[in-house]
């Protein structure tokens, strides 16, 4: 299939286009969560620019052929941010955009947390935090065994890094020399019940990954130039995995959600929804 033989991302948006796209995806997120009357806006919005850059600039993928063997893999380890992934997948064409309004409803393919058995384009099920990096290692090992060129990307939350399994995975990705693996941490410094520094201090975070042997890059996770150049930089890395620590703002793009713990897992009211959508025009 010609479309599958592509060498690069088929959307290949420019930075201004990416900025427009991420706004659009944020609007979907607000609408989906408001319609479902449940979901996690804060961590979906903080990850919006990273996910947009991946799907519309970096990943080799083909929405018409979700099982294409050579596609790059993306795993959303922080599965509660499912709305931003669903928005990106729908906008890419994996399923109709209209389906987004079925989020979390009985019978929908869009489950509350990502589920690989229901949703085209979703590579791995998640919801219990801390597992996605290990799953990504499995994908990366499979690529190595089969001499596939695809790369595996995985997005984690910073609070998620409280889980011991993340550090088991950190050890083994280094051990297995997985230079085809890129982990990104949505470093918004807020978890479910408060600031990460008060609940479980992660600092010095980038240094920890360096000490685990990872090629580590720190960026502003809302600056497309930085996101793209960091992701491209990882392609040159040989013999070790890459970690991008993306400094982000939880709730980014909606003033009253920004840095607001309350919007970790709370839907906006109808008035808040209107206000949020206006801000995202």
């Amino acid at each position, binding site marked *: 299939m010609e479309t599958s033989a592509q060498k690069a991302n088929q959307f290949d948006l420019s930075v201004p286009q990416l900025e427009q796209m991420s706004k659009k995806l944020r609007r979907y997120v607000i609408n989906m969560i408001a319609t479902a009357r449940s979901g996690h806006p804060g961590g979906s919005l903080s990850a919006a620019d990273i996910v947009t850059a991946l799907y519309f600039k970096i990943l080799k993928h083909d929405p018409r052929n979700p099982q294409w063997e050579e596609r790059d893999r993306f795993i959303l380890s922080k599965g509660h941010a499912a709305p931003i992934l669903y928005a990106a997948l729908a906008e890419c064409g994996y399923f109709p955009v209209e389906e987004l309004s079925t989020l979390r409803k009985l019978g929908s393919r869009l489950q509350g947390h990502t589920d690989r058995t229901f949703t085209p384009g979703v590579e791995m*099920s998640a919801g219990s935090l801390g*597992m996605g990096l*290990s799953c990504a*290692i*499995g*994908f990366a090992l*499979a*690529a190595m065994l089969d001499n596939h060129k695809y790369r595996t990307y995985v997005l984690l939350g910073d609070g998620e890094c409280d889980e011991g399994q993340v550090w088991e995975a950190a050890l083994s990705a280094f*051990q297995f020399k997985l230079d085809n693996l890129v982990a990104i941490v949505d470093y918004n410094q807020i978890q479910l019940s408060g600031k990460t520094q008060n609940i479980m201090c992660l600092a010095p975070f980038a240094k920890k990954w360096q000490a685990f042997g990872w090629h580590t890059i720190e960026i502003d996770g809302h600056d497309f130039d930085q996101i793209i150049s960091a992701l491209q930089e990882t392609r040159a890395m040989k013999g070790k995995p890459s970690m991008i620590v993306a400094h982000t703002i939880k709730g980014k793009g909606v003033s009253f959600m920004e840095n607001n713990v309350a919007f970790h897992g709370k839907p906006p009211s109808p008035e808040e929804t209107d206000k949020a959508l206006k801000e995202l025009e």
Partner: protein
Amino acid sequence: MFQQMQPGSHTATVSLRETYGKALVALGKQDKNIVVLDADLSPSTMTCFFAQEFPDRFFDCGLAEQNMISIAAGLAACGKTVFASTFAVFAACRCFDQVRICLSQTGLNVKVVATHGGITVGEDGMSHQAIEDLSLYCALPGFTVIVPADARETAEAVKAAASTRGPFYIRLSRIKSPIIYPEGYAFTVGKAITLREGKDVAILATGIMVFKALEAAEALAGHGINCRVLDVHTIKPLDEETVVKAAAETGAIVVAEEHLAQGGLGSRVAQVLARTKPVPVEFINLGDRYALSGQAEELLREYSLTAMDIERAAKIVAKRK
């Protein structure tokens, strides 16, 4: 059917773990898609044979069972047939959430083959004795749960798991087991094997208890009680048809397993019979307790998991008819 099977005439004991290790190598030769993971226990689980033969397709995940299970899922999502091994206690208890989310909820093609199941682990004591693993794995939708009774059944179960899609849990013992089956016998996942016909009592056993059930049946024959003996190697999905037939035709059941009272073969059999064919049932199991350190045979005696215990239970249940 193995009606002529006489315990005592097949007393050679063979290691299930070693059989597993060799079966993996044979599978690895046939199928390049097979990948094996371990968690720093390969000399004990015997995945070391595979590691030596196919170093590129073997990954030691270190002492990190949670990581191992999720890595297995990732590999399986890319089309690999993955075998992941560790001790049964760790396979069941240390990474249950990973097994639940990454294997059960996805239905991915991962075979968790756990060794050192049950109390016959022995001297290492209760921390190392998996007595709740069957209950935990049977609780997971989509899992097939198998406890082989001897080395030949182990080889057959491992082969069957490799060629059947979906998640499997296979529990093996540390100790060697007497050979029950002839080479090349017919093994089908989910189909209990009638090892001995009988109309007075049916003994349903799994794992190491199968041979003991045969011994008990032999002794009971001397007392005029004819026992049917079923090897229920697949605990989930349970062969309901054969179980119900045994209940209908004998009217009395003994269930024997090296496991807690709750959630294993006994619970599952009782549930089926309660619904379809209620008959008296006696249970041979560990009850609701942990066992202590000791030699395997000593422990089996201490916790009433011997052929004599099965014999006693059969006499009791026969009277309850």
